[in-house]
């Protein structure tokens, strides 16, 4: 119901934009531009491309703005995928807008396309800034192409991606200064201001005000740093009135450690223990420059928490049994979720895949959990690169899953691990006849 409401709200915005645009061009001083000469049509459709590009950018900000009323309905994973697809589709609109408008104005002024472009940059208010903004946007989108992104450090990619905000600011001026749809129609201009205020209002509230307000209330601090294995560390966090900080097992938070070298970045980490109303725990593997410094954080360091986020929770499980498939550090939400599901009376089978014995995180805790819930929790470790391992060997494939889970009926499946592993598991489970609605996973690499 909520989903349908939000989709209708989105469709209504598109209808409003199209209606304003069409009205402006049908009632143009030179006659109906949509049915007239090619020049008029080039300009009209060029402007439409610009309007839709700007709207899509605002939508992108809402999709990834960790806006609760959107995220709770669609789930971060779906929003993240939509953000990715929309981001690449956006390039078409971003390129079409200047191309069509430049050709249109060049024809109108009987000049060359290049000369017109130079004229735009030199004589048209705010257009040079918009052109620089467009260049930055395209650069940021290119940096997000998988083949390029994998060669960039996360921090480098993140800084490039954040330049989008600068691009939005650079491009905003020209929309209202020279955008024909706004200069000639104050209602449309008013609506456009509203869209920007609404979007940035949400963004500022959910990304800035809310986390700061929660920090003021709870005064989160690091209470302990506990090594779990050679390259995995747990960070324990405590604060005031922790019982009122509501988080579910499986959810994640964006953490910003307020100490030198950390305060300018926030990263997503899952709750790795059952929420107890007293403290939080996240467990972090050293994968990059940021995570490598985690063991150096001192207890007492203040932490700003944005969250909780995500719909990867026990509420998704409607079956009697749950099969939890984890790969590597993907065990963190699985660890907390399994305990919650067991407490809720479900049977749980954890299938935990690692390269070697040393990579297993929470081995002792998982064994203790299995002992505590003997008969209801089955724990299967799968090791891929250690011949001396006496348990399950090799990679998780269709045969292994079919053997380990002979009966998939009345089972919900939770997946967490590297994205290729999750995709492969999803595909295997679908082939084994599991309905897609019974397979739960969430990618939160933002």
């Amino acid at each position, binding site marked *: 119901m909520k989903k349908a409401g939000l989709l209708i709200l989105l469709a209504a915005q598109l209808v409003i934009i199209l209606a304003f645009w069409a009205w402006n061009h049908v009632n143009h001083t030179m006659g109906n531009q949509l049915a007239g000469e090619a020049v008029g049509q080039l300009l009209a459709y060029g402007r439409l491309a610009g309007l839709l590009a700007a709207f899509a950018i605002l939508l992108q900000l809402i999709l990834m703005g960790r806006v609760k009323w959107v995220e709770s309905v669609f789930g971060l994973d779906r929003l993240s995928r939509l953000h990715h697809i929309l981001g690449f589709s956006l390039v078409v609109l971003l390129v079409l807008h200047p191309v069509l408008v430049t050709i249109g104005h060049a024809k109108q*002024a009987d000049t060359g396309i290049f000369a017109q472009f130079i004229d735009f940059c030199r004589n*048209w208010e705010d257009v040079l800034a918009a052109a620089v903004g467009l260049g930055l946007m395209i650069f940021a989108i290119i940096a997000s192409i998988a083949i390029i992104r994998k060669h960039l450090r996360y921090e480098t990619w993140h800084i490039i991606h954040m330049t989008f905000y600068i691009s939005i600011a650079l491009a905003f001026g020209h929309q209202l200064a*020279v955008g024909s749809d706004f200069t000639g129609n104050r209602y449309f201009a008013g609506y456009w201001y509203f869209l920007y205020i609404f979007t940035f209002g949400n963004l500022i509230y959910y990304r800035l005000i809310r986390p700061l307000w929660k920090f003021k209330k709870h005064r989160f601090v690091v209470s302990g740093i506990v090594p779990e294995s050679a390259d995995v560390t747990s960070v324990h966090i405590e604060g005031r009135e922790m019982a009122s900080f509501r988080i579910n097992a499986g959810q994640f938070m964006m953490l910003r450690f307020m100490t030198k070298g950390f305060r300018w970045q926030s990263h997503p980490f899952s709750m790795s223990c059952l929420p107890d109303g007293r403290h939080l725990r996240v467990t972090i593997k050293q994968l990059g420059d940021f995570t490598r410094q985690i063991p150096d954080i001192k207890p007492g360091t203040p932490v700003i928490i944005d969250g909780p986020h995500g719909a990867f929770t026990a509420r998704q499980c409607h079956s009697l049994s749950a099969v939890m498939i984890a790969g590597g550090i993907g065990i963190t939400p699985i660890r907390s979720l399994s305990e919650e599901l067991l407490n809720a009376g479900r049977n749980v089978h954890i299938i935990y895949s690692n390269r070697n014995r040393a990579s297993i995180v929470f081995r002792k805790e998982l064994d203790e959990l299995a002992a505590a819930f003997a008969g209801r929790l089955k724990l299967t470790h799968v090791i891929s690169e250690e011949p001396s391992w006496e348990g399950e060997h090799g990679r998780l494939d269709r045969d292994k899953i079919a053997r380990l889970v002979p009966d998939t009926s009345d089972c919900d499946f939770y997946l967490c691990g590297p994205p290729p592993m999750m995709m492969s598991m999803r595909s295997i489970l679908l082939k084994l006849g599991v309905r897609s609605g019974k397979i739960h996973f969430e990618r939160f690499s933002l």
Partner: protein
Amino acid sequence: MKTIKMLGILGMVTVLGIGLATRLTAAEAAKGTLDNLQAAYNGESNAKARYDAFSAKADAEGYKSVAALFRATSRSESIHAAKHAVAIRKLGAEPKAVIEKSDVKSTKENLEAALKGETYEKESMYPDFIKQAEIDKNSGAVMSFKGALAAEVEHARLFAQALKELDSWKEAGKEFYVCTVCGFTMAKIMPKCPVCASPKSKFDVIK
């Protein structure tokens, strides 16, 4: 057999005839737009010369703001003439204008004459020219005529207003803005030209 042969020849002649007639009609039509462009070029060039003369007269009679309006409309007409010239050259011809001596009378009479001229252009001349250019599918000419038409409508309105408030237009101080891209004339500054969307940096300010 003879009858079939005759019918065949008749058919071929008919097809050739229709083809030729169609080509002639198209050529005539194209010629129609070219003639119209030449007429419009001649008209705008003469209007420019006439408004320059009217402006000098208005200055001499002390109607400073009317003089500014004539200077602005003169600038506008010169832009229209230039745009028509481009469309003429695209059809492979050279623009031709015969500038007639302007019939300068009192400022009031000059305004009445200007209003009459603009009214003819907006109500009759340009609408007919646009129709013909659309039939000929000459988009360049259509745009040029439509741009001129939008400006002539505004010129007529401004001339009518000046006539109505002639006494108050004696004082200097009125400014007019002419879009240098399309020739549209405005009595107050706008963020963009409502005709061609050019920004205000493209406007000539005429006092």
